[in-house]
C-alpha cells in the first residue's frame, strides 16, 4: 500500500464513499436505487464504468446482494449500497457471505423507520448492523464515519478489512452524512488486489484442485466447528478497534455518540467546555468491534450519557461495557427529528448535576 495526496473538492458524503471505493480498487458494484443514497449508484454508473469496472442496477435489493456474493466469490473488490429498508432486504446475502467467508462492502445510508418511515436521518439501524442483521450467528465489521473525509478514508479501510478478515464490512452512515458536503482530500492508494484472494477465490480449477465456496455444513459437528471458527474471527476483529476521544483527559461526564450524532455532540461538548464543564466525548468509529474496554476504563472516572438519533440502541452496548462500574444515561432524538447541538446541552448538564450531587 502506498498513498499520495490528490485533489481537494467540495464533496457530498455519498460521493465521498463512491470516490473512496474507486480509490480502493472497486471492480464490481451492484445496487438498487433508494433515497438518500442514490448519489452513490449515480456516481458509479459513470465513473466505475469509465474505469472498466462492472456496474449493474439490479432488479431488486436481493438480486444486487447476490450479485455481490458472486463477484466476491471470484475475489474481486465489490460493493453494494442502499438505505435501511433496502439493507433489510439484503440481509439474506449478507448472512450467506458471512457464512461463506466472503469479503464485500455494504453501505447503509440509513433513514427513518420502521417500515417505509421517512427519508430523514436516523440511527435506527444500529442493532441491525452490529448484530449481524440476518439469520444465524455471525457479525459484520461496522464502520461509522462522521465526516465526508472519514467516509472516504473508511471506505478504503473497509475493503482492506473485508479482505483481511474475509468477512462482509458494513459502512453505517445516515442522511446527514450522505447529503452533507465538505472539503474532501482524496489520496491515491494502490491496493494489492492481484494476490489478496489468490488462495481461495474461484477462477476455474486449473493446475489445482477445485474450490468450493459454501455455507452449508450438514455433517456431524461440521457446522459447530464452522461457527467456532467464525467466533474466533469475530474476536480477532478486536485488533481493528477504532474510536475518537475528545477532552477525556480530565472529564467527569463522558458523552458517547457515533456517526453524525457524534460530531453534533462534539459541538455540544465544546460549548459546555467553554463554560467550564469538564465534559468529554467518545465517538466509536468501529461499532463492531465495539470499544468496550476503553469505555469501561473511562466509566471509573466519568458519569456516562449515550446520545443517539434513535430510541436507544447503542446505549445497550455502553451499559454492557460499563457493567458493574457505572450505568449510562440515555438521550435519544427520535428518527424523524433532526438532532441539533442545543438539544443535547440540557441532558448532558443533568448528568453533570447528578455527578456534582454525588460528590
Amino acid at each position: 500500500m502506498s498513498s499520495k495526496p490528490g485533489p481537494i473538492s467540495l464533496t457530498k458524503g455519498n460521493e465521498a464513499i463512491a470516490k473512496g471505493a474507486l480509490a480502493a480498487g472497486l471492480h464490481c458494484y451492484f445496487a438498487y436505487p433508494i433515497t438518500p443514497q442514490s448519489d452513490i449508484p449515480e456516481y458509479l454508473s459513470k465513473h466505475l464504468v469509465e474505469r472498466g469496472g462492472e456496474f449493474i442496477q439490479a432488479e431488486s435489493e436481493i438480486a444486487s446482494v447476490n450479485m455481490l456474493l458472486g463477484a466476491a466469490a471470484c475475489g474481486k473488490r465489490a460493493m453494494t449500497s442502499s438505505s435501511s429498508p433496502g439493507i433489510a432486504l439484503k440481509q439474506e446475502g449478507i448472512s450467506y457471505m458471512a457464512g461463506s467467508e466472503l469479503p464485500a462492502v455494504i453501505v447503509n445510508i440509513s433513514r427513518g423507520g420502521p417500515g417505509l418511515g421517512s427519508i430523514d436521518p436516523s440511527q435506527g439501524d444500529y442493532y441491525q448492523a452490529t448484530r449481524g442483521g440476518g439469520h444465524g450467528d455471525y457479525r459484520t465489521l461496522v464502520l461509522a464515519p462522521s465526516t465526508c473525509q472519514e467516509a472516504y478514508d473508511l471506505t478504503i479501510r473497509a475493503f482492506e478489512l473485508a479482505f483481511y478478515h474475509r468477512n462482509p464490512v458494513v459502512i453505517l452512515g445516515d442522511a446527514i452524512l450522505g447529503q452533507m458536503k465538505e472539503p474532501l482530500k482524496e489520496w491515491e492508494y494502490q491496493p494489492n488486489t492481484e494476490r489478496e484472494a489468490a488462495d481461495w477465490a474461484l477462477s476455474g480449477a486449473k493446475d489445482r484442485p477445485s474450490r468450493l465456496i459454501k455455507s452449508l455444513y450438514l455433517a456431524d459437528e461440521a457446522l459447530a466447528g464452522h461457527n467456532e471458527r467464525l467466533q474466533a474471527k469475530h474476536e480477532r476483529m478486536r485488533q481493528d478497534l477504532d474510536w475518537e476521544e475528545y477532552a477525556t483527559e480530565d472529564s467527569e461526564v463522558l458523552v458517547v455518540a457515533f456517526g453524525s450524532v457524534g460530531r453534533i455532540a462534539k459541538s455540544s461538548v465544546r460549548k459546555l467546555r467553554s463554560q467550564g464543564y469538564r465534559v468529554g466525548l467518545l465517538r466509536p468509529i468501529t461499532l463492531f468491534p465495539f470499544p468496550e474496554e476503553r469505555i469501561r476504563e473511562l466509566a471509573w472516572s466519568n458519569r456516562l450519557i449515550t446520545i443517539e438519533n434513535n430510541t436507544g440502541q447503542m446505549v445497550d452496548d455502553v451499559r454492557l461495557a460499563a457493567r458493574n462500574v457505572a450505568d449510562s444515561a440515555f438521550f435519544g432524538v427520535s428518527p424523524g427529528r433532526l438532532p441539533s447541538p442545543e438539544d443535547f446541552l440540557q441532558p448532558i448538564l443533568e448528568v453533570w448535576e447528578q455527578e456534582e450531587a454525588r460528590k
Partner: protein
Amino acid sequence: MSGQPQADERVAFALPRTMTGASLHFCPGCHHGIIHRLVGECLEKNNLGESTICVGSVGCSVFIYNYIDVDAVEAPHGRAPAVATGVKRARPDRFVFGYQGDGDLAAIGFSEIMHCANRGENVTIVFVNNTVFGMTGGQMAPTTLVGQRTTTSPGGRNMNTDGAPLNMSELIASLEGTAFSARVAVNSIKNIKQGKKALQKAYRAQSGEQGFSFIEFLSACPTNWKMDPLQANEHVGQTLVQRFPLGVFKDIVE
C-alpha cells in the same frame, strides 16, 4: 466406487474427468443423476473443466459440487442467476453455469431468472423441472400440474386458487436477452441425446458470447409422485410433455 474394472469387466465408457465419481445421493429413478452426467460430459467435451465456475442452488441438487469437479459457489434459494451474474461480471473469461430446480427457479427465484435472461447475461442455466419441491417433501411448485396432488395441494392443484403451471422455457424465450431456450427430457435414449445436443448448443451460446442460454429438463420424482421409477419415467413421457412440450423455443446461436 472403484475406478478400476474387475477381471471379467471391460470399460464401456469412462466417467467424464469433470466428475468426481462420488456416489449420487438421489432417490432411485430420479433424473438428476442423468442430467448431472450430461452436464459433466458437455463440460469435458468442450474442454471447460478448468475454466468453469458452477453456481449451485437450494433443493435436491444442492450437492452438485460433490459430483461435478469444478470451482463452485453456493447461492441462496432462488438466487443462482443473480450470483451467476456477479460471477460472470467478475470473470467474463470463465464459463459460468447455474443448476436450479423448479421451486428454486420458478417460485422464489422467478425475478432473478427473468431479469438475468432479460439482461442477456452470458451465462447458462440448467433448469430441472419435476413439478414439485423435492427436498422439502413434495410440496406444490409453480410447475405442478393442475389436479396434481402434493403435500400442500392434497385435493390436487386448483386453477382457481393456485393458478396454472408456469412454462418457463416459453417465457424466457420471449425475452430479447435470451440466445437459446429449449425444453428437453431424459426419459428415453432419444431424448437424452436431444438433451445433450441442447446443452451443447447452450454452451456454445455462452462461449460465443451470444447471450443468455436456458435448458429446461423435465425430470421424474418417483418419491414425491408416489410412483415407482418406471411409472415415473412413463409419466414424464406421457403426461408432463402434454403441458410442457419438448422443443427449442428460441435459438439465435450461430
